[in-house]
């Protein structure tokens, strides 16, 4: 049987190839290489010498067992165990056959057919096993390939994930930056709003100035006139004393006393107006004060009227006041409510002034203010017979910056501030009723706390 040697050649070359021992296991490769050439040498010797059961066969047996031994014991060959198992039956059967032939030739002869059959079967077993393991290995390789592929995919997705994470981080940073910018813009807007509110106060102060000047001028005139006439009266009194008409002296003295009282009264009047003006320009008081709404309304009605008259001296309007005498003093931010009233009156006079411009002489501008004590608070009604508010813009008049006045004449903040003061600052209400070219009525309700 020459299959021994061929098998050896196959085994050595297979082991070398499979283990890639030339590169990975040079130490073992050396022996495998030697084994390989030895096997070829054995085959050639066998062919030339043709000693059927000579020394070569026994060398082959030893080599095969040695290979099997090493393959089963050394861990480097672990992966090739199945291959070893596949050839094991042949090696064993072949060895037994040779061995029995050596011990008892007759026994061998008698059983030769069985040995041959066993060898054929073992060779079939070898090839069958070889192909099965080969197939298994290929499947495994395929599995491994798949696993590698999966691993690759996984790594790629990891890379993608990392990329995404970087992108997310970038976006987050971007959004945070935008948020900060928006915050900054919001802060700037708030500052601007405060400045605008301040400028609105200053604008209304400007409107007030003329009214205030007129209002102060009047009491000042009285102070001057009464003090002058009192000096004259004193001269006359002296004359009467000389004459001895003491009755007349008494009369004059009484007049002088009255005059001094009037001087004091008008001095105080001017004083309160100046104080009101100072209050108006102040940034805002923090406590509510008991306030006489009638007095406040009257004061600001006159101021608003003279404010407009300062711009157009030919303007004249009927000022109608209808004050509820039973009105209690209520706790409000006085100057804030004053600002609301001033704004409503200024608007009312403006509306009648506009109306007068487009009407004939029969039109009489009229602005009225009425106070009523209601169950749930004090109601202040400001009415004018001016141009009114068109239906289309009625919803907008309370909006900040909405104005119908030409650029530069109105800030558009008057009513919006009034709304804030009445509704947010005092928990009250403010309502509008208007008909175009007929009237406008603002009704404010301030709750009594």
């Amino acid at each position: 049987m020459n299959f021994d040697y061929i098998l050896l050649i196959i085994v050595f070359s297979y082991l070398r190839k499979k283990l890639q021992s030339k590169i990975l296991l040079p130490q073992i490769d050396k022996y495998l290489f030697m084994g390989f050439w030895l096997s070829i040498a054995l085959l050639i010797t066998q062919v030339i010498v043709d000693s059927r059961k000579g020394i070569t066969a026994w060398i082959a047996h030893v080599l095969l067992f040695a290979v099997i031994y090493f393959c089963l014991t050394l861990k480097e060959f672990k992966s090739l165990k199945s291959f070893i198992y596949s050839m094991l039956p042949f090696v064993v059967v072949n060895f037994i056959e040779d061995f029995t032939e050596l011990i008892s030739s007759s026994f061998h002869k008698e059983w030769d057919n069985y040995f041959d059959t066993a060898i054929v079967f073992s060779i079939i077993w070898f090839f069958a096993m070889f192909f099965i393991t080969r197939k298994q290995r290929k499947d495994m390789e395929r599995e491994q390939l798949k696993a590698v592929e999966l691993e690759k995919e996984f790594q790629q997705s990891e890379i993608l994930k990392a990329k995404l994470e970087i992108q997310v981080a970038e976006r987050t940073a971007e959004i945070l930056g935008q948020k900060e910018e928006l915050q900054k813009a919001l802060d700037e807007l708030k500052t601007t709003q405060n400045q605008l509110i301040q400028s609105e106060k200053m604008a209304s102060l400007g409107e007030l100035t003329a009214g205030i000047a007129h209002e102060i001028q009047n009491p000042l005139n009285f102070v001057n006139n009464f003090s002058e006439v009192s000096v004259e009266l004193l001269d006359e009194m002296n004359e009467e004393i000389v004459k001895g008409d003491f009755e007349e002296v008494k009369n004059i003295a009484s007049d002088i006393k009255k005059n001094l009282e009037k001087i004091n009264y008008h001095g105080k009047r001017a004083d309160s107006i100046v104080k009101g003006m100072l209050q108006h320009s102040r940034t805002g008081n923090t406590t509510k004060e008991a306030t006489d709404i009638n007095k406040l309304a009257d004061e600001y009605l006159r101021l608003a009227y003279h404010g407009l008259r300062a711009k157009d001296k030919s303007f004249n309007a009927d000022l109608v006041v209808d004050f509820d005498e039973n009105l209690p003093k209520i706790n409000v931010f006085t100057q804030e409510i004053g600002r609301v009233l001033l704004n409503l009156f200024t608007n009312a006079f403006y509306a009648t002034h506009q109306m007068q411009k487009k009407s004939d002489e029969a039109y009489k501008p009229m602005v009225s203010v009425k106070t009523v004590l209601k169950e749930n608070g004090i109601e202040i009604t400001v009415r004018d017979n001016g141009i009114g508010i068109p239906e289309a813009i009625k919803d907008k008049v309370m909006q900040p910056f909405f104005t119908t006045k030409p650029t530069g004449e109105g800030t558009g903040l008057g009513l919006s501030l009034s709304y804030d003061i009445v509704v947010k600052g005092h928990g009250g209400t403010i309502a509008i009723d208007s008909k175009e070219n007929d009237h406008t009525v603002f009704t404010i309700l301030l709750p009594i706390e």
Partner: protein
Amino acid sequence: MKILVVDDEADVQPLFLQHFRKELRRHDFEFDFALSGEEALEYLKGKASEVVLILSDINMPGMSGIELLSKIRHDFNGPQPVVMMITAYGDDENYKQSMENGANDFLTKPLDFNVLKEKLKKIMDNG
């Protein structure tokens, strides 16, 4: 000589009475007062002929002094009274309107009573 003073400020009344104390005692002048243009017209309905001179403020709630002047000049048939306008706004526009509507004179607040006294005396002497 009867003088009607029209002013919405009631305190002008004692001023006139005190400044013209001597004249009043001598019955040179006689003062009457109205607190508005409307009141003045009502007063004049009965005593138009008696009133020689009207001193009127311009800036008053309701009917202004200019309107009062215009009504007197247009609606009154009898002898026209002398009308002097008084205003706190010593401006051209009011002066122009006063003169256009037939005012005889124009005074500004605060009133200089000595100047006014001279003017009244001149009118009285002429009348």
